[in-house]
């Protein structure tokens, strides 16, 4: 050991702890094709399930004839709602306090809805048999527009007839789900009435889909001898799934083991509970054999968990100098046929009330009305905390609209309205306490980095050239300063179906000084095994390379609420640091005993405890670990392990400044992102390389959403974008180069000051791209146009402004 010759800095570097761009340990298996995903799981005697789905968006199911399907050799069963009803499983509770049909119970409410579930010896037979199930439908009038749905006599949810109170209060109409109000309505309306300037606009954030590369799926395996159900699945919240399965199936929770193996991206799509899980569990219980179900791409896009679909009517009031005095928002939220939004129970519109954004807006009011339509249920947080992307898009569009009304530069308008660094912790008008921030510093850094003044001069020249007929290309500068709210969350505010949203970490140090840690979260590509080991490495002085991370097996991992809404680092990351600190506290006592001094006479030094004033007398954590197990220490139990269940005192509020420079061809609607600058402040940075990767991935998804990706329906309720030919998933070709940057404003309440970053780029990216399109056309009179900004919609803007001669 040459430990004594190394400087503390060298010893710290050897740990590859926080701040190190340690390479992702997961990639060793992923880059060799050795990952273990749900569809890689093969069990003896495994059967396969496949759904018969509705071709209609709204229809009565008159009859289902299984005979022809059952006649095929190898078909084991065909389940319908009638078969599930005796078990009480033909409907299931949703995360939003509604209920949803597992299999069509008399009618269907969206195209692609599950009608029957075929179980067969292999997936080929299952697919053939599904084709042969004869379903007789009687078509009903289709409602795809939430505004029309609220006026229509057509009743979508006949099961709720006469039910005037929903899970979130009174229902105003048979297609209405809830009204959620935040802030001070009267005060806001008074401010609007007295303001120098009020800008008003409808901001639509279209329906899209998380579309992870791996679709949803599961393998249910009921062992009839032990009575134990093992459920492998693409679950972003395995422990919550275990509890929910227990509650709805009646199986005792200790007899259920849920395992999330490697997951190929989630982005919110894998938070909810789907019919495929319920049917597979039932099928395995009935047959006594394992049953696998894996969606195909079209099923994934059509039936599991869409995102967004918010119509946000906004009013923003300001003085003539541009100081914002009030914000008003009424959102009409299209939730589809069932309210299956994945939000904390008390927040039926998620954290949409973060919609005052980065600005010091003294008075605000938000109302959200949820509406049933003939579209797929879902409403998940697609790479964002609950409805935060909608909120950020809304406020960042309203700022631009106000800038137009005031004839002001939008960068300057933002600057004069930012919450100031000395105002933190900041109480927002809609009820949040922002933990920390320094928006002005970030903003100035961003504007300087892109050469903002120069860009505006170039844009002015371009406009002149365009008007002179010298070019047909416009230049747009898209600005965004976003504030997120992530890390749900304090149990006093946040639960899902009554399950408190804490999280957990258990660490065991092995005698030779390596360790295993288990968490209540589950990585879907985020690199938890890499980054959480870094937190532990820095906290207890063992090399990250010697720490194994495990997640996703409910029989071994401590209980937690899973990974979504950027909550892993704010909540489970905090639990990891706290568990590590418990270990360090015990290690201190062991070290003092070994060094024959009082506990308070040793101090922590990177990877060891040393006697105060005598740094040459020390015990490394590795030595302490061995002693913990193998030496009798008076007053201390053997062993060195700890568990922490962390209930955060507050959310964290990451923020960032994004700037997009875009060229737009007014004749074809084609666009080209010339420059994209992303400054993120996620507090303490654990692994800069992984942060950069997260930003690249998130901005790319934002590009997709803003510039073309959508789940579109025709008036019959047919999904027009159910394949990757029409649903835009960018390839390397469409993906621009990004410049990433950062400031560091630690969270004051998080043990290591980290805030979470995985979703910031989507939250900030969408308005940056959209604002670039709007900005290009602003000099020609454009105020507001709806996403996605695909070629024809951009062309339509230009055409509407008379730019095609």
């Amino acid at each position: 050991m040459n430990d004594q010759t190394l400087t503390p800095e060298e010893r710290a570097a050897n740990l590859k702890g926080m701040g190190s761009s340690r390479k992702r340990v997961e990639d060793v298996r992923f880059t060799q094709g050795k990952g273990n995903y749900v569809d890689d799981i093969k069990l003896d005697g495994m059967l396969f399930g496949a759904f018969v789905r509705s071709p209609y968006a709204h229809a009565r199911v008159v009859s289902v004839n299984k005979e022809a399907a059952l006649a095929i050799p190898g078909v084991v069963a065909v389940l319908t709602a009638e078969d599930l009803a005796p078990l009480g499983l033909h409907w299931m509770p949703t995360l939003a306090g509604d209920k949803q049909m597992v299999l069509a119970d008399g009618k269907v409410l969206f195209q692609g809805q599950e009608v029957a579930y075929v179980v067969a010896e292999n997936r080929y037979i299952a697919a053939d048999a599904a084709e042969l199930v004869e379903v007789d439908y009687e078509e009903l009038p289709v409602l795809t527009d939430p505004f029309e749905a609220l006026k229509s006599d057509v009743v979508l949810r006949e099961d709720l007839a006469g039910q005037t109170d929903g899970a979130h209060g009174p229902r105003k109409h048979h297609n209405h789900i809830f009204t959620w109000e935040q802030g001070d309505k009267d005060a806001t309306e008074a401010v609007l009435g007295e303001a120098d300037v009020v800008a008003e606009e409808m901001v639509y954030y279209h329906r899209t889909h998380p579309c992870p590369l791996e679709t949803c799926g599961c393998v249910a395996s009921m062992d009839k001898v032990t009575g134990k159900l093992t459920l492998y699945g693409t679950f972003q919240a395995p422990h919550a799934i275990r509890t929910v399965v227990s509650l709805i199936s009646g199986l005792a929770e200790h007899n259920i083991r849920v395992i999330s193996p490697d997951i190929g991206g989630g982005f919110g799509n894998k938070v909810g509970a789907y019919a495929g899980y319920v049917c597979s569990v039932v099928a395995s219980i009935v047959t006594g054999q394992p049953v696998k179900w894996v969606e195909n791409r079209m099923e994934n896009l059509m039936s599991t968990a869409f995102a967004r679909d918010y119509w946000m009517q906004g009013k923003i009031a300001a003085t003539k100098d541009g100081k914002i005095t009030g914000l008003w928002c009424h959102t009409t939220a299209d939730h589809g046929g069932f309210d299956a939004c994945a939000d904390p129970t008390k927040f039926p519109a998620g954290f949409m009330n973060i919609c005052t954004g980065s600005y010091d807006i003294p008075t605000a009011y938000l109302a959200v009305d949820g509406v049933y339509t003939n579209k797929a249920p879902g409403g998940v947080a697609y790479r964002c905390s609950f409805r935060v992307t909608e909120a950020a898009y809304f406020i960042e569009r309203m700022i631009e609209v106000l800038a137009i009304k005031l004839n002001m530069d939008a960068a300057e308008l933002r600057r004069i309205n930012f919450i100031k660094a000395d105002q933190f912790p900041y109480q927002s008008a809609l009820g949040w306490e922002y933990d920390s921030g320094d928006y002005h510093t970030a903003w100035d850094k961003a504007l300087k980095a892109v050469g903002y003044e120069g860009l505006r001069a170039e844009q002015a020249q371009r406009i002149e050239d365009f008007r002179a007929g010298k070019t047909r290309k416009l230049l747009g500068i898209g600005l965004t300063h976003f504030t997120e709210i992530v890390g749900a969350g304090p149990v006093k505010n946040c639960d899902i179906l009554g399950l408190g949203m804490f999280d957990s970490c258990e660490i065991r140090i092995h005698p030779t000084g390596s360790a295993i840690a288990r968490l209540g979260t589950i990585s879907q590509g985020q690199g938890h095994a890499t980054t959480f080991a870094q937190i532990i490495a820095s906290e207890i002085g063992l090399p990250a390379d010697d720490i194994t991370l495990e997640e996703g097996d409910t029989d071994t991992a401590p209980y937690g609420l899973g990974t979504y809404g950027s909550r892993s680092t704010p909540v489970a990351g905090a639990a990891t640091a706290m568990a590590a600190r418990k270990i360090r506290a015990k290690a201190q006592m062991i070290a003092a005993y070994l060094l024959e001094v009082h506990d308070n006479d040793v101090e922590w030094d990177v990877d060891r405890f040393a006697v105060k004033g005598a740094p040459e007398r020390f015990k490394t954590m590795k030595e302490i670990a061995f002693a913990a197990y193998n030496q009798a220490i008076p007053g201390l139990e053997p062993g060195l392990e700890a568990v922490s269940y962390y209930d955060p005192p507050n959310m964290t509020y990451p923020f960032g400044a994004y700037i997009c420079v875009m060229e737009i061809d007014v004749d074809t609607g084609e666009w080209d992102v010339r420059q994209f600058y992303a400054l993120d402040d996620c507090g303490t940075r654990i692994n800069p390389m992984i942060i950069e990767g997260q930003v690249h991935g998130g901005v790319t998804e934002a590009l997709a959403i803003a510039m073309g990706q959508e789940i579109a329906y025709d008036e019959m309720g047919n999904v027009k974008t159910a394949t990757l030919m029409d649903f835009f998933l960018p390839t390397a070709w469409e993906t621009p180069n990004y410049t990433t940057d950062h400031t560091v404003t630690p969270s004051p309440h998080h043990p290591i000051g980290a805030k979470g970053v995985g979703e910031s780029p989507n939250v900030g990216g969408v308005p940056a791209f959209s604002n670039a399109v709007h900005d290009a056309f602003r000099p020609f009179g454009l105020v507001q146009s709806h996403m996605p900004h695909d070629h024809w919609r951009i062309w339509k803007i230009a055409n509407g402004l008379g730019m095609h001669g």
Partner: protein
Amino acid sequence: MIPAGFEYHRPGDIASAIGILQEHGDEARVIAGGHSLIPMMKLRMAEMGHLVDLQAIEELKGIEIGADTVSLGAMVTQHELITHDGLATAIPLIREAALQVADPQVRYVGTVGGNVANGDPGNDMPGLMQCLNATFELSGPDGRRSVAAREFYEAAYFTARDDEEILTRISIPVPGAGVGQAYEKQKRKIGDYATAAAAVMVGNGQASVAMTNLADTPVWSESASNALADGDVSGCVAAMLDAIDPVADNRGPVEFKKHVAAVMLRRAIERAQSRAD
């Protein structure tokens, strides 16, 4: 995404392939690269009892460059069209268009014969072949016959090819020296079909223009070609806009497609003219 069951055949020569087609009638279909057919089978929009794979038939392969004519085997891949030096010299337009077809992975497997024979109005090669005035060679139970590309397409997925015939080779006259060529395509993303695409040849007092995915067949317009030959670009564009008949889809409404068609055509003409001597 699982197709219905089918029998797989892999004949070694054209005669055997035709024999299988004769035996099974409309229950059988040939498959070349499969990039159109296999997705349709997986969606169960195409079901057939017998799939006749042409990969093992050597006669269907190879690129021959003659002084006046280029001959392409039906099973020549898009990738081979791009990497064949002699072809790039003889008819640079083919390479330029092939580079805009799908993505590299598709082009390694996708074939020129499959692209022209399937009759999908979204495919790039049919319009290109009409512009180049190519001739398709068809082999069937009654022997061989030739059909001009400009006569081949009847409607979406309907062509002059009989069910028991196989498109075996494509003959293309080598454009004279001094003829400028260009292929201009707008698409939403890599791998997409054209929103609008234009193939243009111009020079030596002659011209030929064809467009893709703007009707249920590729559109070659004699009057548009004649107008361009006379140097009348606006007349050419107007004639072509008369000839196309786009429908609204996810790529956009009719009005947009017509506008983009004109833009693509003008850009292709400009580039082709700049390459003409």
